[in-house]
């Protein structure tokens, strides 16, 4: 399957946005490129940007490989993506308000009740409750893939605690240091205002009762979490306290932070902890990561959690399959960003189609993430296919399937030289009481293995700097 190459390699014509970069790459001596690559790696090692890979006992802290060839998006392409992302995130928020409120989309038959009600991330504790400013998903990562010059698909919505934004920021920083000449030659939209945008968003959603100058903290599960680097990085960039559950306590429905100067009231918690671990009195009783009583403070409206509790229901891949209808229902508009056609294995006809076509499909767990537990049919062994066949028959509702998309490729350094590798894009969309913010671009992830379609860093993917060119 011939994939669309973002630079235009393979069909002779270099796409205009990549012309200057291609010319530079062609003229740069290979020793220089090698030097820059090793400098980039040295930079990342020095800042200590690592990622823990679960299920890998050998080396739990791993450097995510960085590829120095940037991925370029034109101003025109970005304008469409930006509008589409805004529309989608507004729809996600409207959907969550609705499923925890009047449930109109269920009554209207837009989505089957059981997909919501039986979803473990649909939190009973949130039914009928209001969240500050009616916003549930403050920070989202919407994964986008491209299949040709004009077609972008949303691959999945990440509405819980999407990670990766630190790589977006660090990638840009290292590129600006190593390739100042390229930045002089291109008009590249900046991304370094992301921390300001995030802080403004978080402050905007402070509880109404909150004071003029809301106190924002970042709650991390701690240094053993795979994204701890990102938590400390972001807290530092935002200029807010990085706290663990034990640094906070609740008294009379108000959250306080223990400090050397005594207790300090907390208004907004950017939490990078899953719902299950937030409050041992409401969720998992064995969680030592959370804050006892936090849910009470939250439901009393005295603290904002970003993201809200219960947003995971939109990360479900079966719910995802209804997003075009959900967008239409809540916005009254046609969706700007397309969905990948999806077979819901819970539907008997879809299941039998999927079972008959496993070698050509991608099968995913409805609640999976990080590229774990998925089958890429065309790259799977007979044995893997058989084992998925069993899983599907055992629990059809637990899976969806999609056609194997020819994800676009971008030139990437490989052992054999520069070669096309498949990429995706995770833009980070911020929703505040004062509107949507989205820095241009996002994180481009690249599948480093030849032909591989799995870009997740947990599965050996790498990243690239993403340039949105100002027109």
């Amino acid at each position, binding site marked *: 399957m011939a994939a669309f190459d973002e630079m235009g390699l393979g069909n002779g014509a270099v796409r205009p946005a990549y012309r200057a970069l291609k010319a530079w790459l062609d003229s740069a001596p290979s020793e220089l490129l090698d030097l820059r690559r090793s400098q980039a790696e040295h930079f990342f090692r020095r800042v200590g940007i690592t990622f823990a890979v679960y299920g890998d006992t050998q080396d739990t802290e791993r450097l995510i490989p960085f590829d120095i060839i940037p991925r370029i998006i034109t101003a025109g392409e970005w304008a469409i993506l930006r509008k589409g992302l805004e529309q989608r995130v507004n729809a996600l928020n409207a959907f969550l308000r609705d499923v925890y409120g009047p*449930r109109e989309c269920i009554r209207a038959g837009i989505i089957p*009740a*059981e997909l*919501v*009600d*039986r*979803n*473990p991330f*649909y*939190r*009973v*504790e*949130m*039914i*009928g409750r209001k969240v500050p400013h009616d916003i549930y998903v403050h920070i989202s990562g919407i994964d986008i893939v491209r299949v040709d010059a004009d077609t972008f698909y949303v691959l999945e919505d990440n509405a819980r605690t999407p990670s990766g934004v630190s790589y977006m920021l660090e990638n840009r920083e290292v590129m600006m240091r190593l390739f100042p000449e390229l930045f002089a030659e291109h008009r590249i939209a900046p991304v370094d205002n992301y921390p300001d945008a995030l802080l403004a968003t978080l402050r905007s959603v402070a509880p109404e009762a909150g004071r003029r100058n809301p106190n924002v903290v970042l709650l991390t599960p701690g240094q053993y979490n795979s994204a701890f680097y990102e938590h400390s990085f972001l807290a530092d960039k935002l200029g807010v306290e990085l706290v663990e559950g034990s640094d906070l*306590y*609740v*008294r*009379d*429905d108000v959250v306080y932070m223990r400090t050397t100067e005594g207790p300090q009231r907390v208004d907004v918690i950017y939490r990078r902890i899953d719902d299950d671990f937030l409050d*041992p*009195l*409401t969720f998992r*009783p064995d969680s030592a990561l959370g804050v*006892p*009583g936090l849910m*009470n403070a939250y*439901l009393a409206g005295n603290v904002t959690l970003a993201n809200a509790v219960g947003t995971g229901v939109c990360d479900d891949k079966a719910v995802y399959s209804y997003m075009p209808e959900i967008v239409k229902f809540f916005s009254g508009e046609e969706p700007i960003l397309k969905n990948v056609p999806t077979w819901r294995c819970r539907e008997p006809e879809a299941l039998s189609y999927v079972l008959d076509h496993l070698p050509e499909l991608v099968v995913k767990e409805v609640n999976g993430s990080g590229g774990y537990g998925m089958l890429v049919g065309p790259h799977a062994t007979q044995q893997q296919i058989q084992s998925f066949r069993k899983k599907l028959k055992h629990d059809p509702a637990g899976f969806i399937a999609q056609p194997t998309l020819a994800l676009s490729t971008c030139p990437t350094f490989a052992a054999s030289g520069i070669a096309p590798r498949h990429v995706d894009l995770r833009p980070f969309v911020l929703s505040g009481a004062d509107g949507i913010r989205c820095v241009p671009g996002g994180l481009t992830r690249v599948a480093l293995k030849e032909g591989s379609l799995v870009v997740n860093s947990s599965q050996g993917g790498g990243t690239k700097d993403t340039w949105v060119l100002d027109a």
Partner: protein
Amino acid sequence: MRIEVFHDTVYTYATPARAVTQILRLTPRAHDGQFIAKWRLDIDVDGRLHREEDGFGNIVHRLSVDGPIGRLAVQVRGVVETTDTNGVIRGGTEPVPEGVYLRDTDLTRPDEAILRFSRDVTAGATQPLEVAHRLLVAIHREVVFDVVPTHSATTAAESFAMRRGVCQDLTHIFLACARSLGMPARYVSGYFKRVDGVVDQDAGHAWAEAMIEGLGWVGFDPANGISPSDAHVRVAVGLDYLGAAPVRGSRFGGGGEELSVSLTVDQSARQSQS
């Protein structure tokens, strides 16, 4: 029946705790089969007790106490007028869509053995009420009441494999079976006035409710092999024990925690006028 409940839960800490927070689901709500004549929840220390409603519609009290706390007692005194409704629950508070009660939890997720068992014992049953009754009878027969081998975090599958458990475990097994057959079912915690005349008990009681088409929520008490009657006082519901637990708590500092429970459930000396 007029049922009187005395329920004391006492925590002692060898090293005093600096603060204690608890969520108490110890206050029943009325429905057509139970009228709350009197109910009081007290603590014997200086603390704050805040009443609210949880996601399932249960009345919860949030207790916060600042230390040092060496001893903390939670005291329940209540009188409830019950009538036998053959287990059918009407006139209660139902904020949760019934489809939620089809969800498996870590405590109720069925394994192959439970799936096979629930299929086998309900084979041929066509009416939902019959399905639920068959489950009730079969679980009561198969699983022996035994306080020794299980604890509060034992799963339905673990208890079923041993064919042993307490009312909590039998209820989890019932929930696992019913949900696997597409029948919404939920956990109920409460009190039971024993028919054998024993008044002093070690713990509260637990049973299940299943959504039966045409009837609504109907109770099933697998530990006793019966439908709840006027001997049952219904306090809280949830997806499993954790959602309906009478007490969930957390303490800051302290150690050497010991818990003692004293519970008596008896028919009130003062008979209702009927």
